[in-house]
C-alpha cells in the first residue's frame, strides 16, 4: 500500500506543491528531447531514402563536432572551420555511398545495418587517431552562440533557462523547417520522396539513386554537425557522446522509423518522460533509471502501435 502510494500519489503531490520545479524539469526534458529529436532525424532521413538503419549516426555527431573543434585548435578561424567541417561531411557522405552502399546494394537490411557498425568502428578509430581521444571544449563562443542563463519568475518560484538551450531549440526548429521546405518544394526533395516511396519506381523514372544517397547522407551529416555543436556546447566533446545514439533509438521506434514528425514528437516525449521519471520516480528505485526508462516508454507505446506513433501502417502479404 505504501509502495503504491509512493508510485501513484506521492510524485503528483510533489508536482502540485512545487510547480516551479515541475516547470524546470519539463523544460530540461524538452531541451534533451530536442537533441534526441535531432539525432533521430538523421536516422530517419537515411532510413527513408536508402532503407539503411544507420547505426553510425551517433558517431557522425561526435566526428563532426570533433572535426570542427580539432580544426579550430589547429588555428583555423571558427567560421572557416565550420565550412571545412561541412566539406568533410560531404566527403564522408560521398565515401560512404561509393565504398559501402554501392557494393552492398540489394543486400538484406541486416547486412547494411552491420556495415554501418563497421563504419562506426572505423570513424571512432579514425577520429581518435587524428584528433586524439581526449575531451575537448566546443567553440560555442567563437561561433556566436549565447551563454549564461535567464531566470524567469513563474509558478511561484524561479525557473532557470540556459540561453544556449533556447538557441538550440530555435536552430533545431529552423533546421526542421528548412528540411521540410527542401523536401516539399525542390526538385531534389521531390526525388528524395520518390525514392523513399519505392526505389524501383524511382529508378524507372530516371532518378539517380547514387546521387540521392549522397545528398541524403550529406543532409544527415549536416544534422549530425548541428547536433554535435549543440550537444557539445552543453557538455564537452568526447567519444563518450556516442552513447546518445543509443538514446535516440527508443525515440525512433516511438515515432516510427520513417516519419520526420514522428522523430520530433518522439524525441520530445522521450526527453520529457525520461526527466520526469528520473526526477519523481527515480529515487524509489535507486538512481540512474534514465539509462533504460526511455526504452520502457517506447516498449509500452509499441505494444499498442507496433509501427510507432507516425509510422506507416505495416501491411503484410504472402
Amino acid at each position, binding site marked *: 500500500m505504501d509502495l503504491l502510494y509512493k508510485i501513484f500519489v506521492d510524485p503528483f503531490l510533489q508536482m502540485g506543491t512545487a510547480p516551479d520545479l515541475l516547470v524546470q524539469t519539463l523544460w530540461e526534458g524538452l531541451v534533451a528531447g530536442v537533441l534526441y529529436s535531432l539525432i533521430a532525424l538523421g536516422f530517419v532521413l537515411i532510413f527513408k531514402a536508402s532503407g539503411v*538503419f544507420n547505426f553510425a549516426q551517433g558517431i557522425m555527431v561526435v566526428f563532426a563536432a570533433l572535426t570542427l573543434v580539432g580544426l579550430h585548435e589547429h588555428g583555423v578561424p571558427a567560421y572557416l572551420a565550420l565550412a571545412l567541417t561541412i566539406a568533410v561531411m560531404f566527403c564522408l557522405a560521398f565515401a560512404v555511398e561509393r565504398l559501402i552502399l554501392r557494393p552492398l546494394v540489394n543486400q538484406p*537490411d541486416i547486412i547494411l545495418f552491420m556495415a554501418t557498425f563497421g563504419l562506426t568502428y572505423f570513424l571512432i578509430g579514425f577520429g581518435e587517431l587524428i584528433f586524439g581521444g581526449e575531451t575537448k571544449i566546443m567553440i560555442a563562443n567563437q561561433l556566436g552562440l549565447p551563454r549564461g542563463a535567464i531566470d524567469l519568475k513563474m509558478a511561484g518560484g524561479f525557473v532557470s533557462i540556459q540561453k544556449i538551450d533556447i538557441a538550440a531549440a530555435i536552430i533545431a526548429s529552423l533546421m526542421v523547417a528548412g528540411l521540410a521546405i527542401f523536401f516539399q518544394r525542390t526538385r531534389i526533395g521531390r526525388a528524395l520522396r520518390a525514392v523513399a516511396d519505392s526505389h524501383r519506381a524511382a529508378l524507372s523514372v530516371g532518378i539517380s539513386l547514387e546521387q540521392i544517397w549522397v545528398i541524403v547522407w550529406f543532409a544527415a551529416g549536416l544534422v549530425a554537425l548541428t547536433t554535435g555543436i549543440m550537444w557539445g556546447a552543453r557538455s564537452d566533446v568526447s567519444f563518450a557522446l556516442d552513447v546518445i545514439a*543509443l538514446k535516440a533509438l527508443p525515440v525512433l521506434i516511438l515515432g516510427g522509423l520513417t516519419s520526420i514528425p514522428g522523430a520530433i514528437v518522439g524525441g520530445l516525449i522521450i526527453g520529457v518522460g525520461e526527466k520526469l521519471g528520473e526526477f519523481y520516480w527515480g529515487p524509489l528505485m535507486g538512481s540512474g533509471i534514465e539509462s*533504460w526508462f526511455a526504452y520502457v516508454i517506447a516498449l509500452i507505446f509499441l505494444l499498442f502501435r*507496433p509501427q510507432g506513433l507516425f509510422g506507416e501502417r505495416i501491411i503484410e502479404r504472402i
Partner: protein
Amino acid sequence: MLYREAGQFKTNYAADVAVFPILQDRIGLAVILFIAAVIIPWFGSSFLIQAIMIPFLIFSLAAIGLNLLTGYTGLLSLGTGAFMGVGAYACYKLTTHFPNVNIIIWIAASGFFSAAIGVLFGLPSLRIKGFYLAVATLAAQFFLSWCFIRQPWFYNYNVSGAIEVPTRSLFGVPITGATATDTTRYFVVLGFVVVMTWAASNLVHGRIGRMWMAVRDMDLAAELTGIRLLPTKLLAFATSSFYCGVAGALLVFLWYGGAEPAVFDVNLSFFILFMVIIGGLGSLTGSFFGAALIFIMPIVLRYVPPKLGIPIHPATVEHIQYMVIGALIILFLIAEPAGLARLWQIGKQKLRVWPFPY
C-alpha cells in the same frame, strides 16, 4: 581428389538424413575433436589455452546461442550481453547460496534463469519485428545492466560491486577460482561447448529447427501451415538465452574469474552479433568461424606489429585496431555477405570437383 564422395552409397534413410553424410567430413570432425581434446591441452602453451582457446570456445557458444535466434528464427536481438550477464549472476548467486552443489550443475542451471528472462523480453516479438524488435531487446540490455550495477542483491552486497568467483572442485580437482589450472578449465569449457553444439545441431536439424526456419522465411506463411507463432518464437528466445546464459556463466567462472557489471554492457552484445554475421547467419560452423575471426583479429593486431619490429605507440595501436576492425567488417560484408560459412561451403564444393573446374 581427397574430398570426394564417389562410392559412398546410402543404403538406408538414416544415412541419407545424417548431419555428416560424407565420410571425409566425419573424419575431419574426429580430427578436430582429437586436436581440441588431446593435442592442444598436451602441447599448447599456457597463453594459447588461457588467452585464446578458452575465450574462443566461450564466445563460440554465445554466438551459437544468438545464431539460433537471429540466424535460424530471424529475430534480431541486441540483448545478448545482458542474457549472458543473467547466466553469470544466476550462477554466482546459486553457488554462493548452495556451495555444496556441484558447480557444473549450477552452470547448466544458470542457463534456465537466463532462458526465463529471455522469454519475458521475447514476448514483444509477436507484435513487432525487424529493427523495432532489435530496439526492444535493447530495453532488456539496458534494464538488466542497470540491475547488475544498482541492485546490490545481485552481487551479495559487496563493497566493490563486482563478483568474485569462489573456488569449487569436481572430484577434488579445483575447476573454478584462483587455484584451478588452465588445462582443467579448458576441459570443462570444451565439454560444455561440445555437448551443447551437438544438442544445437540436433535441434536445428529436427522438427523444431524446421519450425524456426519456416518462421524466419515468412512468419505469416508459417502460421498458415499450422505453426503456432508465439510458442515457436518464445522457444527460440528461451533456447538462445539458455546458450547465452551458460556462455556468460562460463565466461565469468572459467575465464575472467570475477566480473564487473560493465563486462555485460551493450558492446558485448554487438561483439557477439558481429561474430554471427561475419561467421554466417544460420550456420553453426559459421558461429565458430565468426568467433575465431572477431576474437583473434584484435590479438593478432596487438601482437604482430611489435614482433615485426614496427614500433607503434600503444594508444595508436588501439586506434588503428578500431579502424582495421571497422574496415574489415565492411570488406567481409562486401566480399561475402553470407559470411565465412558460405566461403567454407564454396571451398568444399571446389575441393569436391578438383582438379576439374566443374
